[in-house]
Each structure stands twice: as C-alpha cells, then as structure tokens.
C-alpha cells in the first residue's frame, strides 16, 4: 500500500518537475538569496520527517491540523464512551468520582480546543487560500508556528494522564474557587491553565494570519462580495478568535498569578470575587461557541448549492447574518450566568440579546432551505451530512431559545437539558458540518473519493446513534438529573433514559468508527477521481486533485461570485487571460515559493519546554527549565527574524498550465 502520490507528500510525480525544483531551489534566479551565515540552515528536502517539521505550505499544515484534530477527536470520544458506560446503570462503580471528574473535564476541553477548533483550522488552512485564488497564506512561517504551538498546548493539557497528579478535574470552564490552590493543590490545574494559554497564542496567531490573507491576498477580481461563504465565515471566526481569546487569556493569567504567586484575584478570604472568573470566562466562552459553529455554517453553505445545482439563495443576507451572529455573540455571555443573581435589568437585557441571535440564525436556515427549494438535489454523502446539520442544528437552536428565557433557564441550569442542548449544536451542528466538509473536500485533498454506500451508511449510523444518545437527555434534564454527577440512585426515574443514552453512544461510536475506517481505506485504496468530481462552483475545484504545491499554475482572474462556474462556461475568455498571466509569471522567473523553515518549530519547542517548566516542574527545577525553554524560544524567534523571507522560483507543470 502506498499513499497517493500527492504534492502534500511529494514534490511532484513528474521527473521533469522534480528537476526544475532542484535546479531552482538554490539561489539561481534573479531574486536569489544572499549568501547565508553558517548559523542559518535552510531545509530543502521535500519528503520525510524534516520536510513535515519545516513545512510552510498551507496545505500540508492544514493536513497536519486535521490529523492532530482527528486524533484528539478519537481521544475525546473514548472519554465520552467511558462517561456513558459509567452512567449506563444506577450506582455503577466502573469509575471513581475522581476519575469521572477528570473525564468530563478532559472530554469538554479536548473536544472544544483540540478537536473541533483545529479541525476547523485544518479547513481554514487547506481550503480558504484556494478559494480566494492565493498561492499561500500571508505569513507562511507564522502559520507553521501556530500549528506547532497548538500541538505544544495539546501535549501540556494531556500530560496529566501520564502523571500521578492525574488529569485536570475542575470542569472545562474551571470555575473559581474550585481551581484555587486550596481546592486543587496539585499540578493538574496548572497544566490546564498553561495548555489553554498556548492554545490561545496558537489560535490568535493563526487568526491574524487568516485575516490578513483574506483581506490582502485575494486574486484579481475577487471582491469581498464575491468571496465564497466559507471564506467569509473563516474571516468572521478569525475576528471572533482575535477579540474573544484575550478575555480567557487574562482570566488564566489571573488564575496563574493566584496559583504561582499567591495573588488575590479569586481568593475569597482576601476579597476576591469568584464571579469575576465567570464573567471573564464567558466573555470568551460565548463567542467561542460561534467560533465552533460558524466554520460549519460556512461548509454547509458551500455544499448545499453544489448538490442543489443552484447558486446560494440570498448570498449577501447569509454573509451579513454571519456578521451579526458574530457581533451579537459578544453581547450575550451572561446568559450562562442567569442563576448567579445579576439583577433583573442585566438578566432581562442578556435574555433579549440572546433571543435576538435567533433572528440571524433563523435567516440563515431559511436561506439554506431557499437554496434547496426547486433544486435538482443530488443526495451524495456530503449532502446527507449537510442536511443532517440543518435539522439537528435547528433542534439545538430550539432548546437554545428555551434557555434564553431566564425563568425557564433557572429550571434548566446545570441539568442534562443543557447537556442535550449543546450536544445538539456541537455534534448535530459543528461536527456534522465538519464531517460533511471532510467528505466534500476529500477528493480535492487526496484525489480519491469515498464510496457512496459506506459514506451513507456511516451517516445513518452516526445520525441514529447521535439522536439516541442525546434526545433522552432532554427528559433526564427536565426530570432533574444534574450534570456532572458520577452516579445516581435507582429510584429517581432516570434509569431508562440513561440506559438508552448509553446504547446510543455505543451506536454513535460504531458510526464514527465506520466513518474513519472508510476514510483510511479510501486514502490508500479509494476510487481515483479526476478534478472537479462534484461539478462545483468555487475556485478550489479548478485545481488538479491533489493540488500542486504552488496551488494555481496561473493566478486566476475572478469574474463572478461562483468563480469556477463562470470559468467553466467561458472557456475561451479564461484561456486567453491565462495565457497572458502565464507569460507574466514566466517573465518573473516562474512562481515564487517561500523557503521552508525550522525556526517556527524551534520557537514552539522552546515555548513547550518553558511551559512544562512553569506548569509541571517542582519549585526546585521550575526556574531552570523555564529559562532553558525561554532561551530556546528567543533563539528561535531571533533566527526566524534574521533568516529572511525570500524564496525560490518553480515552473508549473505543462499539463497544469493547459488544463
């Protein structure tokens, strides 16, 4: 079994091309790099481990994001299955209360920060530059830094499993004063704090990059109102990340100061207010749920028109409602805190703002239905997941509206009803959208397509399992079962729904198992396809599958919103344009490519070492390890800054030019 020959894995499967790459790689063109000082090492290999650690290609980085995200998705899923097994029958003793606390904390943290966010980032990286006709992101090395810092954060959060302290156990929103030194004396909370800080750095760096890329790297003619909706949602998500993550960063800084230097931010005995943590956390936490859902909305807005054989219904309205969701998302955080006694005015204001968000969300749903309406629907696997998304996300939205009413929420707070609600929006919403996206773009990324039978089978098993797991939880919650209880008595009336939910979770697990087994099989042995297998409308499909490392042989000129659709219907005009642009590129000595670099990786390793020093080591070694890490990090940044950002030139495939 050999992996498909893809530029992500190899420079090219064409010997002439390889030769071109080699000859042009080292300082032969007009824009040649100056002779370098001996301390700078320029990696040139195109295959092997080093090429992956030093890559600055947005497609490879996106692929790595995806692999890490899927790994942690399976870890988080295993944690969820253990939780469900423990709750299958009353008075179960499969897990101890402590283990249960660790599992629900890590399940939430893992799924949100290590699975859904990086999986979205994988699509942002891989697809967004292709959709706007760019050859890479604005800052390729910063992109590599984001990836490796995300991995560093993921490692630190999960270190606890391998240490005697155990994993973090204070819940994914880590309410004060549960996280204080008094109640959590060991290092597990330090690791949680430090890991989340690194994920924040990684997310903000990546988002700054995406913002600049979308605003500044668009192909000629790609005006903002011609951007594909997925790219729009990438932009909104990036803005939400850039503006929301500082709030949790400050909350975590204050918590870290409390734990390391004995300050008083959340220390009740010295006048600290635990409610401040809740405010800071949810100022971040609520935009975060839109960070999780907007990418999925973008993906679905790409899939529905493609398989309905129609343009997206009401494109400007879909875009603006995405913007209003992001904007309103900053004004509703206190609906997570209705029962904390904020006072009637604040409660009423946040309840109203929360209900207002239902308007742009509803508008989107009607636009999607409008897209389907009267279309020639093709029921392919991505379409199935996308339709599942609309339905399941609506169900989650309905229970969300119920929470928005503060008096009703007072009854539902911290019950299984809440669990049901947010799993409907996060699995039925975000995850269905992302799973749809994997099916949709898999042929583009790897040149192979999943068989319809196995794809649809996995959809139905996931769909049935998901509903069997989470629908009964609505009733559990209304019957009073609180969340985060590790076991319950047999006489509370909770036995049947809990048992059903556990069966459902097993079915869901089988469904996800089928989904990924099929993906792995397809990766190696799936049906090979030619370019544009879905007869789609956006620019990424104009590329050969898998796309070459320079993306576009000739930078496209965009004439319409559905750019590739226009190209397919104006072949002569486009061919003439391409010939002109190809000549211009040739005059510049070919396509300019950035050099690979090891320094982003070195910087992230330094950050990892320093964070381990601060969060994990005992006081004796803390400072030394932190300093060593700090020096590695500074050296990485320094060399990164001084190696220069020049690149080399390559010439596209002849075939690619003519296609």
């Amino acid at each position, binding site marked *: 079994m050999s992996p498909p020959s893809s530029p992500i894995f190899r420079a090219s499967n064409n010997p002439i091309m390889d030769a071109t790459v080699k000859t042009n790689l080292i300082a032969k063109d007009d824009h040649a790099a100056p002779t370098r000082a001996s301390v700078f090492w320029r990696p040139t290999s195109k295959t092997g481990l080093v090429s992956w650690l030093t890559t600055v290609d947005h497609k490879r980085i996106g692929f790595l994001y995806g692999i890490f995200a899927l790994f942690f998705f399976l870890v988080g899923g295993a944690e969820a299955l253990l939780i469900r097994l423990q709750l299958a029958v009353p008075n179960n003793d499969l897990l101890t209360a402590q283990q249960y606390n660790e599992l629900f904390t890590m399940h939430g943290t893992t799924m949100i920060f290590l699975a859904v966010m990086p999986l979205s980032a994988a699509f942002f990286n891989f697809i967004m530059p292709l959709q706007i006709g760019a050859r890479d992101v604005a800052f390729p090395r910063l992109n590599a830094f984001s990836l490796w810092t995300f991995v560093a954060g993921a490692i630190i959060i999960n270190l606890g499993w391998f240490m005697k302290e155990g994993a973090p156990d204070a819940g994914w929103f880590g309410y004060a004063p549960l996280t204080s030194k008094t109640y959590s004396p060991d290092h597990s909370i330090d690791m949680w704090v430090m890991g989340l800080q690194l994920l924040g750095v990684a997310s903000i760096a990546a988002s700054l990059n995406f913002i600049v890329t979308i*605003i500044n790297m668009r192909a000629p003619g790609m005006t903002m109102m011609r951007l594909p909706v997925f790219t729009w949602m990438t932009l909104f998500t990036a803005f939400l990340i850039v503006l929301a993550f500082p709030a949790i960063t400050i909350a975590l800084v*204050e918590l870290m100061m409390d734990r390391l*230097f004995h300050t*008083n931010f959340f220390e009740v005995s010295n006048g600290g207010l635990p409610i401040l943590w809740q405010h800071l956390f949810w100022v971040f936490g609520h935009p975060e749920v839109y960070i999780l859902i907007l990418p999925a909305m973008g993906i679905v807005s790409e899939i529905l028109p493609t398989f309905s054989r129609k343009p997206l219904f009401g494109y400007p309205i879909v875009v603006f409602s995405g913007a209003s969701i992001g904007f309103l998302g900053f004004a509703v955080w206190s609906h997570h805190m209705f029962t904390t006694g904020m006072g009637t005015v604040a409660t009423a204001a946040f309840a109203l703002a929360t209900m207002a968000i239902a308007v742009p969300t509803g508008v989107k749903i009607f636009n999607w239905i409008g897209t389907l309406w009267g279309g020639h629907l093709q029921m392919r696997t991505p379409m199935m997941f996308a339709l599942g998304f609309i339905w399941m996300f609506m169900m989650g939205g309905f229970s969300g509206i119920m929470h928005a009413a503060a008096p009703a929420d007072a009854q539902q707070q911290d019950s299984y009803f809440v669990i049901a609600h947010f799993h409907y929006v996060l699995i039925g919403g975000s995850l269905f959208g992302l799973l749809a996206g994997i099916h949709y773009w898999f042929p583009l990324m790897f040149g192979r397509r999943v068989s319809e039978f196995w794809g649809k089978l996995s959809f139905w098993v996931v769909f049935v399992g998901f509903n069997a797991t989470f629908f009964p939880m609505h009733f559990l919650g209304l019957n009073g079962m609180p969340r985060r209880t590790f076991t319950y008595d047999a006489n509370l009336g909770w036995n049947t729904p809990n048992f059903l939910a556990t069966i459902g979770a097993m079915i869901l697990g089988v469904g996800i198992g089928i989904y990924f087994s099929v993906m792995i099989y397809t990766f190696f042995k799936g049906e090979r396809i030619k370019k544009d297998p879905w007869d789609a409308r956006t620019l990424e499909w104009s590329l050969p599958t898998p796309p070459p490392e320079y993306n576009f042989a000739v930078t496209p000129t965009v004439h319409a919103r559905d750019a590739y659709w226009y190209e397919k219907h104006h072949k002569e005009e486009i061919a003439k344009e391409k010939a002109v642009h190809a000549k211009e590129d040739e005059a510049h000595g070919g396509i300019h490519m950035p050099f690979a670099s090891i320094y982003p990786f070195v910087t992230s390793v330094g950050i990892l070492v320093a964070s381990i020093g601060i969060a994990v080591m005992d006081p004796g070694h803390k400072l030394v390890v932190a300093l060593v890490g700090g020096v590695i990090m500074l050296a990485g940044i320094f060399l990164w800054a001084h190696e220069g950002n020049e690149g080399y030139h390559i010439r596209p495939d002849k075939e690619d030019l003519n296609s």
Partner: protein
Amino acid sequence: MSSTSATIDHHHDHTTTTGIPNKKLVMWAFLASDCMFFGCLIATHLIYRLHPPPGSPNPKDIFSIELTSFSTFILLMSSLMMALAVNAIQKGNIKSMRWSLLTTIFFGAIFLGCQVYEFQHFVHVYHLTITNSMLGTTFYTLTGTHGTHVAIGVFWLILMYVRSFQPKNTAADRGWFWRGLLHIAAICGAVLFSIFAVIGLTHTLQAGEGFTAFLGHDFGLVIGLVATLGLSMFLARPRGQVAFDQANAIDVESMGLYWHFVDIVWIVIFTAVYLLEYL
C-alpha cells in the same frame, strides 16, 4: 535597492489586494486583540476598586503622582521619537533613524526605570505587595503587564537598531551575525546598568549620602555601564554598505504602531489607575 529606487510609495503596496502592506494589517489586527487584553485587565482593576475588601489601603497615600506624571510625559515623548524614526527611514535616512531609535530606547528605559523605582518604593516604604492586598494584586499585575509590553518594545527597538548594521554583502563579512548578537547584548546591558545605576544614585541621594558613597556601593554598575556603552559605540562605527534601507520602512512602521499603542494604553492606565484617585 537603495541606489536604484529613489522613492518608494510607503502608503501603497501594489502586491496586496487592498494596497495595505501585510505587516501593517497584521499589526492593526493584533492591536485590536491587545485592546481586549488590556480591557479585561483594566476592568479587573476597576471592579476591585468599586468593591474594595475591608481594610484596603488608600491609593492616594501610596501613589506619587509627580513621579508618574513625569514618566508618562517621557513615554509620550518617546512616541514622538518613534514617529521621527519612521519618517527618517521612509526617506532613506538611516543615520537619523538610528538616532531616533536610540532616543526612543533611552526614553523607554527611563519609563521602565521609574516603574522599577516605583515598585521598590511601594513595597519597601508602603508595604504594598502583590499578595497582601487586592490593590497590590490588581495594581502590580496591570502596571506590570504594561511594563512588560514596554520592555518587549524596547527589546524590539534594540533588535531593529542592530539589524540596521547588517552588511549588504554578508559573504564578505562573515562575522556580522555574531557581532550583531554581541551588539544586542551590549545595548541590553547598557539599558539595564543605567536603570539600576540611576536608581542606586537616587537611593543614595535620598539617604542624604554623597556621590562618593554611591560610587562606593554601586561601583560595579558604573563600570558595567561604561563598558557596555563603550562596546556599543565601538560596534556602531561605520563598516561599509548596509542591507537596511527604505524597503525596511514597513518593519520600522509596524514596530512603531506597537510602540504608539503601548503608549496609548498607558494613557488609559494613567487615567484609570492614578488620576481617578485624585478626582
């Protein structure tokens, strides 16, 4: 490049869609993010100011508004020098840019020195520590975070200053990299030695002792300062054509954006933390 291109349009980058250089755009987006960062910290301070725990010290008894007003003025003047540095390099005047950068570094160091002195003073004289009161917790965390931003800015200025000495033909001058590292270390040393020497001098004078007494306990600092200053000047002597030119104006400009932003944040902190107490 400096010889061939007489003028570069510093306000329009034809390689980007909007004409805004990527480095400028990313810095603006980062500053938006940093607004939220400082916003949350300042909010924390103000919340605890509204809900002080019983027995909280009165900030007016602790703050020295004269000293802080002075350091605020210095920081604002450093922004002027930063703007002059950007202007100089946009016209290709490297020598003028270097002097402006050095003055900015100098003013930044004065601000940092005032902050170190202020912290020492508050801890030793007024016994306000980061752990013993909520005021100490929020005050030191907020102003300390801002001070860290200034320190990062000073370090960045030093890196940019030294980078302006990188020779055009690195092949003919193999030692430039290590000389640059030494240059950075020398300037960082000069900044630190001067901060602590001036603070030592102030303490000696406040104690009513003379200049000779200062030389008595802080002679090492003075020697260090002289040595690092001398080394910095030695390394800064002209050595032929450099690679740094007008095309690097965008690097200086985006650093300037950061520096001005940190100044603006200080105006807010000065108002919310200090001036508010004197209403």
